[in-house]
């Protein structure tokens, strides 16, 4: 899910949807803007290890809503660079150790706001970031570790290829070996797991397909088999789950739907019902306008998306909810690249 591109798709309208299932952009923009002003909440401090990812998800959401300037660009760049370590990698926040996950987020953020040059100007250089990532490849198997302690996961493999392609440094790693490794993670249902032998999981399928897309080897996928398994992730309420017999969730709606899009099978699920499900997961201040006592503080709580209807919203599900809607050509949203 690197970058949004191009103008919003025209076409289908949401006119047939009932009022509560409309998308109103402004509350969601305000919700994201409010996130960094919540220092009086314990949760803010308990989630410091996700700060850089949070920024990425927030920006992704804002770009999808056509409001890329809703967060100050300079501050964003300063914060990202303040997370960088001497070895080129990035931590989740200043003082947090470098890790693949946050290094990828950093590169994605800088790419999204067209600021990769800042790595040369004020950071430690593009090449050092690339070599940090490349250094985490397991030269024997082709997969990637998250950090020096060696946890391996196809999430890191995808992240590495994604960031390196944004940095134009794919040559720094052995792409063929990485591709072979993904193939070795395939299962009888056509899906992929975190490592060879691991059960298929929609999040992992997304990372493997996206990595194969970046490596231009999507031809290696058993498209029909995987498409059937993925399409069965849609449950009665329209939402999608991550594995058989699990509950639906907005974030899985994104992993599954974008995976289906990457293998050309998005039409194998019911897009309208999925849209309705995602919209039911949003909190939108419009519905609470009647209440007289909404002060500014509460107002910031009146936006965003949750994992499923009635749950707490968070920036992660907000980004992927909007990503899902964009994938399904929702009007008023920018088009998203499934990778």
């Amino acid at each position, binding site marked *: 899910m690197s970058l949004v591109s191009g103008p919003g798709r025209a076409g289908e309208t949401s006119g047939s949807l009932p009022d509560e299932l409309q998308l109103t952009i402004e509350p969601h923009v305000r919700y994201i803007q409010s996130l960094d002003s919540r220092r*009086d909440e*314990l*949760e803010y*401090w*308990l*989630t*410091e*290890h*996700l700060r850089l*990812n949070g920024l990425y998800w927030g920006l992704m959401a804002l770009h999808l809503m056509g409001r890329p300037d809703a967060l100050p660009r300079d501050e964003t760049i300063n914060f990202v660079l303040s997370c960088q370590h001497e070895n080129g990698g990035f*931590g*989740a926040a200043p003082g*947090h*150790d470098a*890790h693949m996950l946050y290094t990828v987020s950093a590169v994605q953020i800088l790419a999204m706001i067209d600021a990769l040059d800042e790595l040369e100007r004020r950071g430690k250089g593009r090449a050092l970031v690339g070599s940090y990532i490349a250094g985490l490849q397991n030269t024997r198997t082709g997969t990637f570790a998250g*950090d020096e*302690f*060696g*946890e391996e996961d196809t999430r890191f493999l995808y992240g590495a290829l994604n960031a390196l392609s944004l940095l134009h440094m794919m040559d720094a790693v052995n792409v063929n070996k990485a591709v072979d490794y993904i193939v070795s993670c395939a*299962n*009888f*249902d056509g899906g992929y797991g*975190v490592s060879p*032998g*691991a*059960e*298929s*999981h929609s999040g992992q399928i997304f990372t493997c397909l996206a990595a194969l897309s970046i490596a231009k080897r999507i031809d290696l996928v058993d498209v029909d088999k995987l*498409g*059937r*398994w993925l*399409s*069965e992730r*849609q449950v*009665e309420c329209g939402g999608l789950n991550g*594995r*058989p*017999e*699990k509950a639906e*969730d907005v974030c899985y709606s994104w992993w599954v739907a974008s995976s289906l899009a990457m293998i050309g*099978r998005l*039409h*194998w*699920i*019911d897009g309208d*019902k999925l849209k309705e499900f995602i919209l039911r997961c949003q909190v939108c201040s419009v519905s609470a306008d009647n*209440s007289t006592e909404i*002060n500014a*503080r*509460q107002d910031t709580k009146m936006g965003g998306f*949750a*994992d*499923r209807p*009635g*749950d*707490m919203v*968070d*920036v*992660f*599900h907000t980004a992927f909810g909007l990503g899902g809607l964009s994938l399904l050509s929702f009007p008023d949203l920018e088009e998203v690249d499934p990778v």
Partner: protein
Amino acid sequence: MASHGVPRPSTITTKDEQARLKEEKDIKDYKTLVDLTSEREYSLEVLELTSKLLTKNPEYYTIWNVRRRLLTYGLFSKPSDSSLPSMELPSTSQTDTTITSSADSSSSSSQATPPSQNSRMTGKTGTTLEAIKNDLAFLVPLLMGWPKCYWIWNYRLWLLQQAKERLDMEIARAMWTQELGLVGKMLTRDNRNFHGWGYRRKIVAELESPELGGSSMVETEFEYTTKMFSASLSNFSALHTRSKLIPKLLNERRSDDGARLRFLTNEFDLIAKALWTDAYNQSAWFYHEYLMTNLLEPVRQSTITPNMSSTERSAYVVLQIENVKEMLEGEEECKWIYNALLGNTMALWQLEERSPMSDELQDCKTWLAELRKLDPLRRGRWDDLEKEFRGF
């Protein structure tokens, strides 16, 4: 920040003054704890601070790393293979409980830690063993409370790796073996826990490795999947694991063609029983499809019965189709049955390299119509299937 299953309060309430003050204090306490837990020295005191902080917030991955460094460079008794940290440690005070770092203890025996200090940590069996044991015990309640936290599982694996590298094989092996009990408990609590199944796979791989004096555990692990599947017939994780063990199992048993065929039939029986119990068990249907794939793949490529001839395969597929048809009785509303019938019948044409017979084509069209009716969510899939029929 990524919350799952946390219900939203039904009404928006302003926090009262008391709640606000409490949150303010909690934040202050938490931030103080974070500030205290700096890597200023590799001491037991700091280790305890990390314990406190991680118990509050096990997602704080950097603190797990701090803990690794504390053990590696400070608290373990033997020097590690990995290079020592380049950073200079600030000199530690005389009164604290610092255990001399491994760099010191290995470079000069004259600087050996006084026994009185050492004994606070080591007991009889040595610092490393005690440190690892204590840490493994520290993690258990955290795993129970946060069974989906990647960092805890990873840290635990790292600890066990340290045991393998630093302790006698027998002792290390006993530790790894104990993990099977722990992960068994975790999987009883949540039989689909993704981390639990992955962890089990890693533990088994280590226990099988020559470094731990191991041998194959494929038979007992296969039995474990049978047990887990019997306890819950829709446990896709158990069936997945089964599919991964089968090739190895048959090779190790040196099964001949006859034994392989019997094995396949047993698997079909097992899954048929589950499907007769609940025809809507999608996990069982996916596994059924996997077993069918074994028949439908080219000779020598299939994993279970590689030497079965094309004629034998055809006959077996036809038999399976008949079995599935019988399930329709009383379950006419079950889309999975139509789905299997359709898929397997079409695969049979491919296997026999022929066009469909007219009655088969008629059947398929009827089944497809049922699928359209019963499963409108996936109508795009049915549209594509219909296009395939038009080719005939």
